[in-house]
């Protein structure tokens, strides 16, 4: 069954979604193919499960409402990731407004929350990695997560974020260097 869903192309999903009486079936297939990947993309950005769950649901509701207007100028994959990324960024900005004042405070608070989170069972180095990621500026953080965890190519990230490949490479390199330094300090 899983193999069958993975074999379905984006074009087939789009054709079903736009066919009268087949919208639900098409959308169900889209969920089966993409919901897990998009959830993890969102989770890496917002970190906590409850937040990721809310953002993922909002994201897919927007996808459902907008898919009839999807013109196919980009791939379905790119369009979905763009929506998920924007939803996550919007969520993080709202959360930041009512939360900590500085990045340092934010990272400390996140580390405390992760220790208490039942859906996080990482070790000290994984916790240190999450803390280091939170200390990055927003753009570097997003690019690092997409490349390091999601293993996307620069070209894919460029299409999703609408940024040049050169700029993305620079952001990723800066992010990696900062995290490496932070991890080394933690180990030392």
């Amino acid at each position: 069954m899983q193999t069958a869903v993975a074999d379905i192309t984006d074009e087939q999903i789009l054709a079903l979604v736009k066919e009268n009486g087949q919208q639900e079936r098409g959308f169900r297939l889209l969920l089966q193919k993409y919901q897990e990947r998009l959830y993890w993309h969102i989770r890496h950005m917002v970190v906590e499960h409850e937040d990721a769950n809310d953002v993922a649901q909002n994201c897919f509701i927007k996808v459902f409402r907008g898919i009839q207007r999807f013109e196919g100028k980009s791939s379905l994959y790119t369009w979905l990731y763009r929506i998920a990324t924007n939803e996550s960024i919007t969520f993080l900005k709202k959360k930041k407004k009512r939360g900590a004042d500085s990045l340092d405070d934010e990272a400390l608070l996140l580390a405390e929350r992760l220790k208490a989170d039942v859906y996080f069972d990482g070790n000290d180095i994984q916790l240190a990695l999450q803390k280091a990621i939170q200390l990055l500026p927003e753009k570097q953080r997003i690019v690092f997560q997409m490349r390091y965890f999601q293993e996307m190519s620069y070209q894919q990230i460029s299409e999703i974020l609408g940024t040049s490949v050169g700029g993305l490479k620079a952001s990723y390199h800066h992010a990696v260097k900062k995290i490496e330094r932070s991890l080394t300090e933690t180990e030392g």
Partner: protein
Amino acid sequence: MSEKENIKTELEDLAPTLAKLKAENLGTGFQVPPSYFRQLTTDILAEVQPSSPVPSVTWYDRLIRQLSTLLQARPALALASVIVLILAGMWFLRTNSLSSNDVPGLALNNEELEAYVLAHIEDFDTDLLIDIYTAEEEGKTEEIMESPLLEENLDNLLLEMDEEEFESLFEGESFDE
């Protein structure tokens, strides 16, 4: 070379600690509740699916529904109270709009009027009473009432009268004192 290989090579050059961590494939330590993704599909579909269609309601059904609502105990009592209040208001307004002359019990007859005048005869000016009396004889009551007789008016009146009028005025009157 796959993207995974590219990322690994890139990391080994830039950040050995991160590269080692990636190679261990420890992941993030993030977890989800059991059967989470199945539940997520159900939740999302429940959000986006339209609610069950509402059966069409005709005007007749609406009327019957409203009537049955009105005829329930509390609304019926409220409706009855409003009707009683409206009727009481209408009766009150109608009663007040009738003048005292329209009420038979309040009408005065001539005998009662005369009795009232006799009882209060001292309150009236004697001259005025005489003038009214004489004017009644000639049908000039209104004129006199409009211009009360002063002494000079009386003189003018006498001058204007000819002899016949003067005689007719005192005709049949006796001056026995």
